[in-house]
């Protein structure tokens, strides 16, 4: 739980920094103004700073504009089809959340009737669970909601086995590569690093072979088989990542445990693993996202019934009856949680990625 606490402290520090920054800049501005008035600072200097800052701000806004654009598209009112969506407005005239309601769809837990036959009698007790109606989109004028929840379920059933399997493969290997010396160690590590760099595209190039094998084994359209494939592709990068993280843990802790008489397996479970929580969390997030965001292989192997979220998103853009606003809402609902999780993993989980932290 120290991990969560450290994330919270970091978030708090950041929040404080952001909140106090206006005061800080006001102080700087006041100081500069006084300096200019008394003639200590030439008036051109602050003007240059303001100009440069505004220029940089404009650049950042232009670069991030597509994200804003897709957001405004999602909250603008919907037309009949993808072609009837209107022109871009910087601030949509009558924003509505209808598109998001269309994405989420009904949230209704239907009532179930459970009947228990009492033994040694003809009697039966029937329980009826209440129908829980959290959200009925028909109330808001949305009919025919999207398949988002169906895709979400498929994505979950792919991503969770991926994570479990990948962790089982990655954690022991990373520990051994980090702490033990054995035959072929260097060669395996070298191979993993090479594969880390070329992994992605290679997968697509080999897709024909993979597809042929899967079809012949009758494994295409199986979510579990897809999860095993994802776990396999995640092995080199994540093993290397976790190994690098474990390298940073001082060996002296383990030595202390050994001196205290701990058997090897207890050294691992009580010293190494607890100390590498942050690394494990990073690997967890990355393997989860492998299964969650992969598109090409899923699109080739899975049938319509088993489409995961990325494939569902792609299928949507070719459907011309879906208004652009709805597509945007779907895309955002899919991408925003991932972006947040990814950025947290990047920024707050220390030491996971060596180039992740940019210091100011």
């Amino acid at each position: 739980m120290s991990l969560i606490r450290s994330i919270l402290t970091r978030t708090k520090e950041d929040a404080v920094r952001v909140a106090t920054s206006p005061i800080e800049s006001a102080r700087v501005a006041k100081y500069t103004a006084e300096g200019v008035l008394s003639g200590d600072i030439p008036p051109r200097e602050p003007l240059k700073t303001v100009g440069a800052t505004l220029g940089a701000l404009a650049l950042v806004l232009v670069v991030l504009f597509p994200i804003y654009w897709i957001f405004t598209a999602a909250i603008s009112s919907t037309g009949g089809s993808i072609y009837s969506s209107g022109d871009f407005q910087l601030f949509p005239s009558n924003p509505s959340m209808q598109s998001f309601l269309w994405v989420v769809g009904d949230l209704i837990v239907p009532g179930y009737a459970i009947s228990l036959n009492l033994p040694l009698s003809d009697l039966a007790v029937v329980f009826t669970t209440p129908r829980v109606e959290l959200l009925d989109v028909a109330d808001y004028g949305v009919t025919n909601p999207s398949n988002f929840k169906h895709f979400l379920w498929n994505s979950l059933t792919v991503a969770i086995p991926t994570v479990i399997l990948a962790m089982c493969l990655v954690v022991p290997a990373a520990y051994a590569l980090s702490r033990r010396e054995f035959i072929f160690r260097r060669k395996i590590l070298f191979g993993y690093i090479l594969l880390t760099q070329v992994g992605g595209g290679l997968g697509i190039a080999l897709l024909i072979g993979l597809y042929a094998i899967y079809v012949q084994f009758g494994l295409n359209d199986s979510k579990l088989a897809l999860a095993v494939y994802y776990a396999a592709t995640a092995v080199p990068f994540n093993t290397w990542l976790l190994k690098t993280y474990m390298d940073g843990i001082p060996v002296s802790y383990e030595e202390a445990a050994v001196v205290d008489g701990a058997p090897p397996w207890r050294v691992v479970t009580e010293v190494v693993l607890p100390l590498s929580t942050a690394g494990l969390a990073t690997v967890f997030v990355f393997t989860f996202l492998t299964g969650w965001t992969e598109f090409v292989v899923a699109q080739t192997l899975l049938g319509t019934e088993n489409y995961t979220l990325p494939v569902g998103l792609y299928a949507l853009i070719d459907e011309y009856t879906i208004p652009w606003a709805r597509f945007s809402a779907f895309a955002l609902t899919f991408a925003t949680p991932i972006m947040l999780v990814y950025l947290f993993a990047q920024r707050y989980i220390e030491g996971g990625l060596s180039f992740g932290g940019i210091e100011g």
Partner: protein
Amino acid sequence: MNTFSRVARRLETIPYLEKSDLSLLFVLPGLFVFSAFMLFPVLYIVGISFTNAQPANLFAGEGVVAILTFGEASYVGLENYIGVLTDPRFWNSFGVTWLYVATSVVMKLVFSIGMALVVTSDRVRGRRLMRSFIILPMGLPAIFTITVWRGIFSSANFGLANQLLGAFGITTVSWLTERWPAFFAYNVTEAWLAYPFMVIITVSALQDVSEELHEAAKVDGAGHLARFRHVTLPSIKRPVLFATILTSAASFQQFLIPFVFNTGGPARQNELLILYGYQEAFSFSDYGRGAAISLIAVAFIGTFMWINVKRGKLADGVKEA
């Protein structure tokens, strides 16, 4: 004494293996699964590339034997490779791919270094905040980014690119149905997709540039441009080169952008190499040919990476590990 320890003691008696080598057992499961799902398809695809495999014959047989004999597909020798290498369409795809690597890498480099310079400049206030915002797109799934950019270049009313042109009074362009506009659209999207990674690496390199050198150059009367060329550039060269190699490999293997935008259209003119192989196999049901193309692409990317690893010492980390 459990089974594991007994097996362990038995293994120790094998000559050439030391007790410590037992740790290899921790690595083997991962290595095995990875090989089963990556290396076996490699071997299989090599096999397919020498046959006339099509869905009709490849998936004809039953059972495990059929897998090893490639169904009922028959051996055709080098026919696929000869067919591919004498096909003008392959050479078109090959040329477009290299052109794409060249243009997109230059675009990514200029864009990212420029942006990194801006968000590290001393004159800019709030650099830290800007930096954390600017790398936001890194967390977005590729399929999201690419479908959104397809919307931007769409010819429909909401297409942002055309609205922008309209604002300047220029007539609309049908981005995705003409060859070079589509190619341009690929490049812009690729640049947007890859810039956060490049900016991160460039920014951390820029922060390591020594202040003293800059001061010294200033004292000697060097202008902004001269200082950039003679002080900044040499200090950031190595990390940026590293990022360039990785990102050019990514450009070479680009599949999603052309696939989502217009499946390498119009009329298959913009099919990048990996997409070309994919299309031959899955859209035109010629698995043998698709396999041959994919292998040629893998050979190129493999050679490219190998040369870079050898010359750029990419895997330096291993030696000190």
